[in-house]
Structure formats: C-alpha cells, structure tokens
C-alpha cells in the first residue's frame, strides 16, 4: 500500500512506474532464482496427483479422559506416527495435523498401503522392559559374538529348565529383597521432589552414534558372562538365535526387528534394537505399561548441574510397579540393572538403575542434549497420550490416475486461460496485452511461490489447489477489467489517456482492494475452519488473491502509466482498445463546461 500511495502523491505518479516495474521484475527474478537454487523446479504434488495413499486419522479421547485433544498431544502423536511410518522404510511420508483433531498421513506411491495402514492404525505400544542381555548392534561376525552367544545359550538352557512358570515367581521373589531397602531412600527425599540420581541414561543413547562404541558393549558382555543370570525365560535359546540374527546397524534391519518385536505380546521376551543401532538387547516382559505413564517432560537442571534430563511421572498403579521393578534391577549388574523404554518394538532408551525408585516419579539423566531429552520425553508422553485414532478417510490413487488428473487439470487451466484471452482480446484489443502480461506475471509468481512453499511449509499441490488456481485466473482478470473500465469511463468523460489512467486508478484501486479483501476473507476463513481438500483449495485461492493485489499494484498500473505515453495507446489507435470514437466519446460541445468537470478522486 505504501508504494502506490507515494506514487499517487508524486505528480501523477508518472515519474516512478519504471522503478516499480523494476521492483517486481527483481522480485520475479529473485523468486525464480530461489526456485532453481532450492533445487525444486516443480511444485510438490499431492497424493491425488502423484499417486499414493493418504489416511486421515481422527483423534478420539480415551474413555475417562476428556479434553485430551490439544495441540501438544496432537503434535506428540504426529511425531510418533511419523516414526512408525518412516520406520517402514518409506521415504517422504508426511504426517501433519490438520484442524483441531485430525492427522493426515500421506504415503507416496510404491508403498504397501495395507502395511502402512496397520502401522498407522494401531495404537502405539510403549513399555518398560528389563534388559536381560545386550550386545553390539551389528550382525556380528562369528568369533566374538559366537563366544558370547554360546555363553548365553548355555545360560538360556539352564534357565529353560526353570521354565516359563517360574518366571513370575522369580521376579516377585527378587523384588521383595531390594524393595525394602530403597523405599526409605525414596521417601527420605525432601518434599518428594522427583530427583533421583538413580536413573542414568546410557551415554550412548544421549549422543547417538558418537560415544557409543564397541567398548561399553564389550564391557557389558564381559560382565554378563560371569554373572549368574536369573533371567527368566522359556525359549531363551531361540531368542538368542534371533538376537544374533538381528542386524541393528542398518535401517532396514532395524525396521524388521522393530516390526517383529512390536508384534510380540507384552508378556513375551523380545529381542530388540536400540534406536541408534549400536546395541541390541534381549528384553524381559513388559514390567510397566506405557499407559501407566501420566506425564513426561524435558527439563534443564541448573541446581545440580546435571544438564538436560527427562522427568517422568507414573499413575498410582504405575508407580507401584515401577518401584518394584527398579528395586529389582538395582541389585543387579550391568546390563541387567538397565530397563529399556520400548516404543513399538524399538528401544528408545535404556537407562540403568541403582536404587528402587518410588513415589511415582523418576528422572532420567546423563548426557542428554536438549533435543534428545525432549525426544525421549515425547516418546514417554505418547504412552501417556490419552488419545486413540480412527482412520476416517483413506484414499489410494494410482500413479496413472494421478497423472491423468494432473493432465486434466492442466488442460482445463489451459482452456480456461485461452477462453479468457480470446474474450479479453476481442473486447479490449490492445489493452488485452496489458492483461495478458499481468496474467503472465501473476502466473510466474504463483508458480514460483508454490514451488518454494513445497520445501518451506510442506505445501503440496493437489487437485482442489489446481482448481483454485484455475478459478483464480478469473479473479485476477477481473481486477484488470475493473481498472480498464475505469480508464474507459474517464476517456468517455473526455479526458485524454494519460490523465484517464491516473484518475481512474484511485477508484479502481479501491474497488479492487475491497473485492479482493472479500475474496481473501472467504479463503482465510475456509483455510482456518475447514479440513482436508477444502483447505488446499482455500490456500491457493488466498495466495492468488494476494498475488492479484500485488500484480495490479506493482505491475498493471505502472505498465499502464508507461503505455499511456506510447503513441499507439495515447492517440487511441483503433486496435488499442482505447479509441475515444469507439468508446462513444462525443466531441465536447462547450469547452467552458469541461473546466468544471468536478469528479475528484479523493477517496481511499
């Protein structure tokens, strides 16, 4: 708004059109340059144009926990679903919230929709499992793990004799011992503050891939070998074999491992990979369910200099169980004093325990960065997420149909554009050139911005958005018509072209602003309120409406000002569309009256 106002105040605004034009040309070049620099030259296509599968999930409150649908919970859920879908080995799957209570999952073509749906549709399983054994995450060559494997195998066989049934007895038996001792520690804590040094996250977990080396793992193995393992377990040997087969060092390997682990029941022991791929572990049955977590947050500890840590709270049942299991674990040696936080079959963290932790709250500390701490807190919160999700819409579009729809959209756009051009040329003749140039500028701006918005905010061009863009041709052209008709009106008043262009502008400008505002208002309301396809349409419509204003102000108007100086237009050539005779101007009869022609463009 500032620029055109200035332009108006300067005498007739005629000194500046060149500069304004240069400005918009620079903007166009910059956008185009940015587009090529970003490496994307076509807009990201939505599922309906590129092919693929799209799910819409609707969040539902779990019974007894109303009002759980809020931005925080939804974002946590998005994070989790993203993990799962990408865990399938899908690249570029995108998960985003939409509206208040919907999550859209878009999976590009080439992925098994059924498998994806299973991942998306099932609820997340978070559990705390005791670590029984841990080894380096790679599918290790025979010598080293072979040895440990044998050890474990023996150990497993011994345990096998005890059988599955003794498992429960054993664990309870083990519990009673330590739980008496540590509980005073817990209650001794001043004000029940949930600070426990007891939990130390494995350093390797906090800085994935960096400090986690073979060394600690070897150490673990050393320690473990001599330890008489009280590991409960039926088919420990089979499990051990499975563990040996696991390859946690590659993404695919992990995905497979996670899938297998996630499929097993909470009461089974599992072999699982740690998230960073450095360690694989055999884990006991779920000791505490994720649903027992009532909250988790990442905090920065300034008082004791522990840096970033994760605080978590349990509900009463969870607190009891957690105290029990930590008490048990605290008496053991590494790695069996660790418990693993397992999300969908993947170990996201495996902190060790040195005392029983009672009171329903705990703290995991040690080598966290802000990011890793909040990630873990997120995962833990998901266990506490009182939401379940229903698939309310599922769309599968084959690449063939997607391409066809895209082509149809483009052809429709071309036809629409062609018709508009024909009409404009027929009616406005030379002026149509201005309209066409403006439409072209508008098209270039729209295209580049759409391309750039792809990587920037994840904008994807879908069919409704294409429709919006086509409909916008009309809106944009309407603005020119408003202005052209204004200019013609001024010429009918007997003015020559240059004053007509300048005097017509303020009024046309107001009309354009008011009507574009209404259009934009509609688009904005729709974008905010609605979901799904409607939103994509509203977005394009809003964008093009804004660009329409930009183009009319910074391109059409200055261009008109410049063209008004050209003889072709100024003299009213029959093909200019501004021929006074054709516009039905009567030669002024009484010159004295013209002086008093009082129309004064002082509004706006």
């Amino acid at each position, binding site marked *: 708004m500032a620029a055109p106002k200035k332009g108006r105040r300067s005498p007739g605004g005629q000194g500046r059109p060149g500069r304004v034009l240069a400005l918009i040309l620079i903007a166009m070049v910059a956008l185009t340059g940015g587009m090529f620099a970003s490496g994307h030259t076509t807009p990201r296509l939505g599922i*309906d144009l590129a092919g693929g599968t799209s799910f819409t999930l609707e969040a539902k409150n779990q019974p007894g926990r109303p009002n759980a649908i809020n931005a925080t919970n939804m974002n946590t859920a998005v994070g989790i679903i993203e993990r799962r879908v990408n865990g399938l080995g899908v690249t570029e799957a995108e998960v985003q919230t939409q509206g208040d209570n*919907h999550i859209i999952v878009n999976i590009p073509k080439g992925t*098994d929709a*059924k498998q994806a749906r299973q991942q998306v549709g099932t609820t997340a399983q978070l559990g705390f499992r005791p670590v029984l054994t841990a080894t380096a995450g790679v599918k290790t060559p025979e010598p080293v793990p072979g040895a440990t494997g044998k050890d474990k195998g023996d150990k497993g066989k011994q345990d096998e004799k005890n059988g599955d049934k003794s498992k429960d007895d054993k664990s309870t038996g083990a519990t009673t011992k330590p739980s008496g001792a540590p509980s005073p520690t817990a209650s001794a804590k001043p004000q029940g503050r949930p600070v426990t040094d007891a939990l130390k996250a494995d350093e390797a977990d906090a800085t994935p891939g960096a400090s986690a080396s073979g060394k600690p793992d070897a150490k673990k193995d050393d320690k473990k070998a001599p330890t008489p393992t009280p590991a409960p377990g039926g088919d420990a040997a089979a499990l051990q074999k499975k563990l040996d087969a696991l390859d946690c060092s590659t993404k695919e390997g992990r995905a497979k491992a996670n899938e297998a682990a996630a499929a097993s029941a909470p009461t089974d022991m599992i072999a699982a990979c740690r998230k960073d791929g450095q360690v694989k572990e055999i884990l006991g049955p779920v000791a505490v369910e994720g649903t027992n977590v009532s909250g988790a947050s990442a905090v920065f500890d300034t008082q004791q200099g522990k840096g970033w840590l994760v605080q978590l709270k349990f509900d009463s049942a969870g607190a009891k169980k957690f105290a029990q299991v930590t008490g048990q674990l605290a008496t053991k040696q590494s790695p069996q004093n660790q418990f693993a936080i397992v999300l969908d079959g993947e170990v996201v963290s495996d902190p060790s325990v040195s005392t029983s932790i009672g009171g329903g709250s705990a703290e995991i500390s040690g080598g966290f960065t802000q990011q890793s701490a909040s990630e873990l807190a997120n995962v833990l919160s998901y266990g506490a997420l009182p939401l379940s999700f*229903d698939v*309310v*819409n*599922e*769309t*599968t579009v*084959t690449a063939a*149909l997607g391409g066809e*729809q895209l082509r*149809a959209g483009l*052809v*429709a*756009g071309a036809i*629409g*554009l062609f018709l*508009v051009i024909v009409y*404009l040329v027929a*009616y406005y*003749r030379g002026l149509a050139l201005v309209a066409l140039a403006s439409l072209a500028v508008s098209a270039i701006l729209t295209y580049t911005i759409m391309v750039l918005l792809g990587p920037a905010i994840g904008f994807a061009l879908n069919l409704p958005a294409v*429709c919006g863009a*086509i*409909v916008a041709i*009309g*809106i944009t*052209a*309407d603005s020119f*018509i*408003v202005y052209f008709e204004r200019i013609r*009106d001024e010429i*009918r*008043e007997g003015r020559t072209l240059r004053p007509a262009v300048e005097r017509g502008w303020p009024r046309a400008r107001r*009309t354009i602003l008011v009507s574009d505002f209404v259009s934009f*208002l*509609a688009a904005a*309301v729709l974008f905010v*309120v*609605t*979901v*799904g*396809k*409607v939103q994509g*349409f*509203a977005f394009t419509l809003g964008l093009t409406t804004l660009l329409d204003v930009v183009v009319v102000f910074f391109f059409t108007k200055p261009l008109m000002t410049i063209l008004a100086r050209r003889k072709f237009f100024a003299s009213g050539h029959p093909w200019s569309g501004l*021929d006074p005779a*054709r*516009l*039905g*101007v009567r030669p*002024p*009869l*009484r010159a004295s*009256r013209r002086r*008093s*022609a*009082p*129309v004064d463009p002082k509004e706006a």
Partner: protein
Amino acid sequence: MSRLGNLGARLYRGEVGYDFVGKRKIWYGISILITITAIVGLAVRGLNMGIEFSGGAVFNTPPTSVSATQAQRTAEDTSGHAAVVQKLGNKTLRVQVSELTTEQSRKTQEALAKKLDVPVNKINTDIVGPSWGDQIAKKAWTGLGIFMILVVIYLAIAFEWRMAVAALVALIHDLTITVGVYALVGFEVTPGTVIGLLTILGYSLYDTVVVFDGLKESSKDITKQTRFTYSEIANRSLNGTLVRSINTTVVALLPVAGLLFIGGGFLGAGMLNDISLALFVGLAAGAYSSIFIATPLVADLKERDPQMKALTKRVRARRAADAAKAEAGDASANAAGEDEDVQDAAAGVVGQRGEDAGRSRGRGGRPSGKRR
C-alpha cells in the same frame, strides 16, 4: 466491439439503460419463485449425498475386461451392500458402495483386486468413514457462518449496513439456488461440491462489491442535490457499471466453464467436475443477484431512510416546479438554475457532466433513461 463500446458509453451516460430498480418487484418475484422452487426441491427430493457423507467407498479400477455386472456382484457379495458400478471410458470401472464401515470397505477393495487380478494398490480407492463427511459438512457450515458474520461486519464498515444486509440476502439467494439446482437435478454432493459452494461465497460477493462500490461513489453527495432520488442514482450507477459486471462475470465463468468441460467430458466424474459445476451455477446466480437483487434491495432500504425520504420529496417538489416553470415558458432561467445545481451534484453522479445534464434535459426534459 465498437457497437459494444458505444453501448458501454451510452449506458455510462445514462442514455440507455434498463430500469433495474424500478422493475425490482418483478425481479424480486422471479427470485422468490426460484428460491421457493429450490427450497421445495430440497425438501421434497433432498440432496443426493455422495459416499463422502454417508460413509463408504469408491473404487476406480484400472482398464479391465471384467464386466460391470461381475464387479458389482463381487462388491455386493463382499460388502453386503448395494453397489453402483459405472463403466467409464477407456474400459475402467467405477464401483461405489455406500454405508460401509472402513473395515468392510477394505475387504471389498481386496475382493475386487482379486476379481480383477491386479495388485490391491492398482485400484484407486477412496474409503470414507461415516463420521468424516459429517466433519466436512459441519466445518463447512461453521466456515459459512463465520464468513457471513465477518463479511457483514466488513461491508457494514466499508459501505453501510444496508448494503451489508443486501449483500447477505444476495449471498443466501445464490447459495439457495445452487443447492436447489443440486436437489432438483439430483447431482451428487461431494466435498468438491462443498468447495465449489464455499467459493461462491467469495465470488458472489466480489460481483456485489464491485456494483456497490460504484453505487457508493455515485451516491456520495446525494443529499446536496435535488435532481435525482436515491433509487434513480442507484439505477443509473448500476447501468454505468453494467459492462464491468458482465465482463467480470464472463471472465470468471470462462475458466470455470473450461474446468466443467474437461471435468465432465474428459474425466467423467470427480473433483474437477464437482467443484466447477457448483461454481458455474453459483457464479451465474451471483451475477444475477448482484444486479437484480442486491442493488434494488439497497435502494429499497435506503428509501426508508428519513434523509432519503426528504430527498425524494424535494426532488418531486422540484420537478413539479420545473414542470410548472417550463410550462410558463421560462426556459432560460431554468437552464441557468440547473447548471448551478449540477455543479453541486456532479461529484455525486457518475460522469454527470455539465453538458450531459444539459443535453439530456434539453432533449427530453427529463433525466434520461429514468422513470417519471
């Protein structure tokens, strides 16, 4: 074009013109009739809601040799619900089963894939849970409500409340007609239709706003003159912006027509078709209502304003006086007095220039193209 240009000029000067405001009762009547038809149609026939609103699934198969009947049987056997199968061009089938749960839909999809002997992911599928359509519809209604409130506030500020009310009436009129057409013809209502309907909001008002803007400008200093009543000025302004209205409407309709042609003729059915059909009907209704309903309505409301009533009285008194004077043969005095008047009023009347006024008065002894 030159004829059109000339027509534009004559419309602009008020030499020709249609008396929109004067004949408003006829157009009100027509609109009420259409609206009632639409409402009756809606009540009697109801809307043909697509599966997006009832829950169910649409499957588009790749080109296949399986016949429509076979596909229908497969779909019905698996789902236990009636299936509608259309054979589209290029040998593809469109299978539509309504009122399915998501689970049933998936089973049907798999059965169809098996029947056609293609992988499941080669079948284009749109599965909609029963609550999803409600969501879309509910959100659309919310959006509609919010938009109407905001736009009335905005128009009341930018123009005045009477125009806001008239614009709202016109908007509701357009929406009712569009929905009515859907009910009467039995087109299927899909999310695409909802998108189209919601777009009419912005567009129908775009037209109305363009007309109102002209009206506002011409009636700026209306109370300072005694030549024209508000209704007359409104009508004149309407005629003056008629070319603009027609052009903007045509240009807006052309791309939509392109969409409709391609969406309907090329793809058979789908999103493009749904959006453009609703838009086409709505835009046409919008152009009609902004000219024939909105502006006359503003004039009607305005004439109830005491100020405007006084103006109308003054105008009548003056005309009576002029007529008396003219009869008395005091023509020259009349011309002089009128000229001053025009200077006052000119700012308020679009393009009302001295010689125009003088000429038209000279020609006919009355404002051209006007009643009375």
